[in-house]
């Protein structure tokens, strides 16, 4: 086992997948010689050559479309878009072809590809570099959407995504890229896409988060446990679509209270979908309204004020207290 940060864990997953299957290839801007702007594809071009580690022209639509074409041809491309804000350039290809080709071709041409892209705030970046638009992709039939929260599950989810017979949008929380290290197993140990991780069992309230929001959530939990005597259950969603409804429902049926945390805008966000599923499946077990701690329905602010926009431990604790106080 190696101690890796998320960048290293993703790089290892790509490396291992490319070594195991020569259909796996990488395409994106600066993914070759440069190793990717975040170094996720570092050294792959030396190992696998420029046929399989493809430095692409600066055109996100072309990158994604070329990857879709390669997937139709039978390869297993992993496309990288440098920032999720730039995936909008490829929106039409994701919606029109990546998501639809299996169905359009009546399963003759399944699209086994991964679209990797860093998302989220917290790195003091310029405009279009901090958005969280996972709800777009979750709203698009035909796509799977996953978001890891740490090195180990990033490695496992990327393996699962590359092996998946259907297209996966793989959102990488760039604020976590180099935030901490974890032991990552030498051999691939894929997580099943569609399964959430109950990272802390508890009795009083269910906290649901994913991606970069797991860190402030766990920070809040530490405080809630130590300073306030609260016993929260914490779920790391991991898979945005398909969503692990069973785990969420089971937890909330037990605790009766729930707070959901994500950094994307609130309106039609992932929390709204979770609440709808709780309404359908756990209505009689709820003892308090489910609260959302999310980004606001505004454009992501310039970075001098981003700390006030993003959910943090303080805002999560406030929401938890309010939910627990409800009678």
């Amino acid at each position, binding site marked *: 086992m190696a101690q890796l940060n998320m960048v290293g864990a993703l790089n290892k997953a790509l490396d291992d997948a490319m070594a195991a299957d020569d259909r796996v290839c990488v395409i994106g801007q600066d993914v070759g010689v440069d190793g990717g702007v975040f170094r996720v594809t570092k050294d792959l071009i030396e190992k696998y050559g420029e046929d399989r580690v493809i430095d692409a022209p600066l055109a996100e639509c072309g990158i994604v479309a070329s990857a879709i*074409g390669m997937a139709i041809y039978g*390869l297993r491309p992993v496309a990288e878009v440098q920032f999720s804000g730039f995936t909008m350039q490829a929106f039409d290809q994701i919606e029109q072809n990546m998501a639809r080709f299996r169905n359009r*071709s*009546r*399963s003759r*041409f399944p699209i086994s590809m991964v679209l990797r892209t860093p998302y989220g705030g917290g790195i003091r970046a310029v405009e279009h570099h901090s958005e969280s638009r996972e709800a777009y992709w979750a709203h698009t039939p035909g796509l799977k959407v996953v978001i890891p929260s740490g090195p180990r599950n990033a490695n496992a989810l990327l393996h699962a995504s590359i092996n998946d017979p259907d297209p996966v949008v793989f959102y990488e929380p760039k604020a976590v890229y180099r935030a901490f290290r974890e032991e990552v197993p030498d051999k691939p140990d894929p997580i099943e896409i569609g399964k959430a991780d109950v990272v802390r069992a508890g009795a009083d309230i269910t906290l649901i988060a994913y991606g970069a929001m797991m860190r402030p959530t766990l920070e809040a939990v530490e405080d809630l446990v130590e300073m306030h005597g609260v016993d929260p259950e914490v779920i790391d969603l991991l898979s945005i679509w398909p969503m692990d*409804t069973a785990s969420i429902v089971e937890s909330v049926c037990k605790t009766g209270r729930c707070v959901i945390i994500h950094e994307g805008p609130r309106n039609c966000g992932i929390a709204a979908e979770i609440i709808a599923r709780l309404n359908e499946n756990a209505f009689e077990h709820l003892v308090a309204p489910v609260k959302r701690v999310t980004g606001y329905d505004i454009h992501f602010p310039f970075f001098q004020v981003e700390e006030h926009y993003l959910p943090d431990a303080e805002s999560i604790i406030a929401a938890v207290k309010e939910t627990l106080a409800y009678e």
Partner: protein
Amino acid sequence: MGKPPIDLGEVENLQILDADGRADEAFAPQLADDELLKIHRAMVLTRKLDLRMLAMQRQGEMGTFAPGLGQEATQIGQIQPLGATDWFVPSYRSFGAQLWRGWTIEGLMLLWAGFFEGFEVPPGVNDLPFSIVVGSHVPLASGIAMGIKQRREDAVVVTNFGDGAISQGAVNEAFNFAAVYKAPVVFVVENNGYAISMPTDKQAATPDLARRGPGFGVPAIRVDGNDVLAMIVATNEAVTRARAGEGPTLIEAVTYRMSLHTTADDPKVYRTDDEVDTWKPKDPITRFEKYLLAKGLLDEGDDERIAEECEQEVLDGRERFRKRAIAKPREIFDCMFEQLPPSLQQQKAEYLARLDRKGVE
């Protein structure tokens, strides 16, 4: 004379058959008599299907579709040089080429009549079901070609699109990617004069669309798209270049959309009958028939006999279509994913229960 029709970085015009069907033999493709007759029949069959589909649409038996009347030579010429292991990535106005590749008449009818089975690619055929969003399929062709190159396999891709698609960013990105990676793809822009109501000279400021090629490093040629021999020669050369690792080629096929954009369109709003009439003498089938008559491959009356045979083939196809034109509402979830996740299984069960309540099979 004897000069290759495609010159790197230049745009030339290629015509082999003149309006009277006289061939410039220096450039004419070396094709067996049987193949020439097969090409002729394919064009006639394409037209018969087109006209029959229009009649069916007007009678309520067919959905909205995009007729290709007048573009038969462009269609057959761009596909004849391909082999079975090659790929074809068509636009939605591609009856003729699809028939040549092995799509069935009933399959195409099913497709346009709104049955999803129509999009099932026939076994052994390396064609994509088309995308309705104009130009969105073209970068997929580059991607397939990049895959072919990566695997060092001996195959090429032909993709077609219209003059309207030339304005789409995705198409221009496709040119660039194919050129940078020298991917084995042939781009055929069927310049049929109109993108619905927009004439080509309002679509692009360049006098010919082939000029887009050299700017991307894609050699290009402008071809009389109503001349099937010229289309074959140009495509053949482009395919040969692609197979030799020399990368993509852009072929501009200059033709004319004699019919409607789609069956929902009324061309009288934006063009005159006089304009349409100027293209009638350039009819691709009549011109090729003159050539075959002069060559002694057709006798007087053969054209009518072949037309009747093709008409019958279309009617037979329509019978098969009618037998298969049974909607399958129970299958709409089945090709979304290899395995349906629980939430979709639940939605499918909910949907099937709804069909049960309504008594729908």
